[in-house]
């Protein structure tokens, strides 16, 4: 069990989201940074689909009431175990009674805590993700609070063996941490309505820096910068949106739709962030500048496939390591 001693800003149970229910208007939710979440799970020997804790900016204080194997991936929120700095992007065996704390957010906004066995809350519509606005899924439909006791699933045999490994140097080579930049360049595919925008807007979206505004959350980031406008204002018929859709309402400030996005929307979409670059936007903090760069659909899909191959390699390498321990 994970005992929450202090709550932090916003820590919620998330997995890869509620797939297959968007046709009923159900918000997908799930992790903001799927790559960090998946790698964290794999490092502990979990299936990548198990739930992790998504920890936002100011982390909680968590006490382990049992021995555990964990991994922390994503934004660097200065994690410490019993007051000692610990490394991210690697497997860590934890002794019962240890306390995990977080400090200053160094880079990135969200850190994923995977625990061998997974965060074991009840599935709702095939997912353990929390949808905060409707108060459903995850741990009682809400962010974790002081006093919560969050259940962990059973470890398998290989995971139990990891508890007794000296991992001091063992995994250093394994996962090179993802670099989240202070001014990320985020690759974007032109959207369906790209050509409806005027010439200035079509140029500015790829040439100007945009700032992540204060009204940004898991639903979407509102960006501030050069305002974008349509050549001729038109009313569009609402249609599906996706994780990373960049839509532009009448005020001209683009909105990037993220994990808790609505299923459909009627604003023109100037672009769509490439799947492989979703972590860059998810890890951007309020006030941080970002830039967009064009990528073709073909290239974006090529990168996506490459990333999936990489994740499969990581998975295979970890399995090999685990089997060496037997």
């Amino acid at each position, binding site marked *: 069990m994970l005992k929450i001693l202090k709550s932090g800003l916003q820590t919620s149970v998330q997995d890869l989201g509620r*797939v*297959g*229910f*968007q*046709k*009923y*208007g*159900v*918000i997908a939710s799930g992790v903001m940074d799927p790559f960090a979440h998946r790698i964290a799970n794999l490092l502990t020997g979990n299936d990548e689909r198990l739930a992790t804790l998504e920890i936002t900016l100011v982390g909680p204080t968590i006490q382990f009431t049992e021995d555990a194997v964990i991994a922390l991936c994503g934004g660097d929120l200065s994690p410490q175990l019993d007051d000692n700095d610990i490394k991210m992007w690697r497997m860590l065996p934890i002794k019962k009674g240890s306390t995990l704390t977080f400090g200053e957010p160094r880079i990135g906004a969200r850190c994923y805590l995977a625990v061998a066995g997974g965060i074991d809350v009840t599935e*709702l*519509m095939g997912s353990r993700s929390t949808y905060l*606005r*409707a108060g*459903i*899924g995850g741990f009682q439909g809400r962010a974790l609070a002081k006093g919560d006791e969050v259940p962990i699933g059973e470890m398998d045999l290989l995971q139990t063996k990891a508890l007794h490994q000296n991992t001091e140097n063992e995994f250093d080579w394994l996962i090179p941490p993802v670099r989240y930049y202070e001014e990320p360049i985020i690759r974007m*595919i032109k959207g*369906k309505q790209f050509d409806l925008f005027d010439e200035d807007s079509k140029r500015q979206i790829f040439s100007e820096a945009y700032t992540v505004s204060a009204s940004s959350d898991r639903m979407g980031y509102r960006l501030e910068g050069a305002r974008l406008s349509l050549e001729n204002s038109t009313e569009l*018929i*609402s*249609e*599906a*949106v*996706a994780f*990373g*859709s960049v839509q532009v309402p009448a005020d001209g400030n683009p909105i990037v739709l993220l994990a808790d996005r*609505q*299923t*459909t*929307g009627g604003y023109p*979409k100037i672009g*769509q*962030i*490439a*799947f492989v670059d979703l972590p860059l936007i998810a890890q951007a903090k309020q006030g941080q500048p970002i830039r967009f760069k064009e990528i073709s*659909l*073909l290239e*974006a*899909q090529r990168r*996506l*496939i490459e990333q*999936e191959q990489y994740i499969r390699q990581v998975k295979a390498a970890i399995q090999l390591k685990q089997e060496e321990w037997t």
Partner: protein
Amino acid sequence: MNTLFSPLGDQAIVIELGNEINDQTEQQVRKVAALLESRQPEWMVEFIPAFVTVAVFYNPCLAKYDDVKMELKELLTQLTEDLPFESRTIEIPVCYGGELGPDLEFVAQHNKLTAREVIDIHTSGNYSVHMIGFAPGFPFIGGMSEKIAAPRRDSPRLRIPERTVGIAGMQTGVYPIETPGGWQLIGRTPIRLFLPENDIPSLLRAGDKIIFKEISKEEYHAWEDDLNAENS
């Protein structure tokens, strides 16, 4: 019009079956949705039907954009003339006005009607569900009389309770979950539109006919008490 295909990022394709909202296009959308539901191509992750489009999400490791487009084109040649299912009629009981519908008077004044007249018009409409989207179980409902149309509020309310019935412009709708919003609130229904514990978590589906039926405050509270008893 011809069916158009366009990418929605690197993991989805949008099938556009028309360029205006009408019965024929909506039927096409429902047929395509039913076909996808029954065929479940292996590369498909899920799909989202809307007014005139169906967005199909796919796994690019199994099929890239051009392959998906080709397969969908082929699939669409198999659409049949028959509608995949009968249209249902769902009755939604509503308690109008008072604290459950604080803007009923505004809607009446705006249209130079009495509150009674607004209720009579709202309960006699010929409504159908165009699509489910935006929020869990939220129906986009067509068919409201323009006699009770009302503009959105200048400043949206931060919290609109779940199951509230509202009017925005020419549209009427029911909020399935508590949300912020700018609709004029005319009443509330004791029945839930979002059913997260069900296999199909939305009470309504595209194509349903809707009847709004007026109930008294006492009936509303009796119904709501049952609902609470069920949940506890």
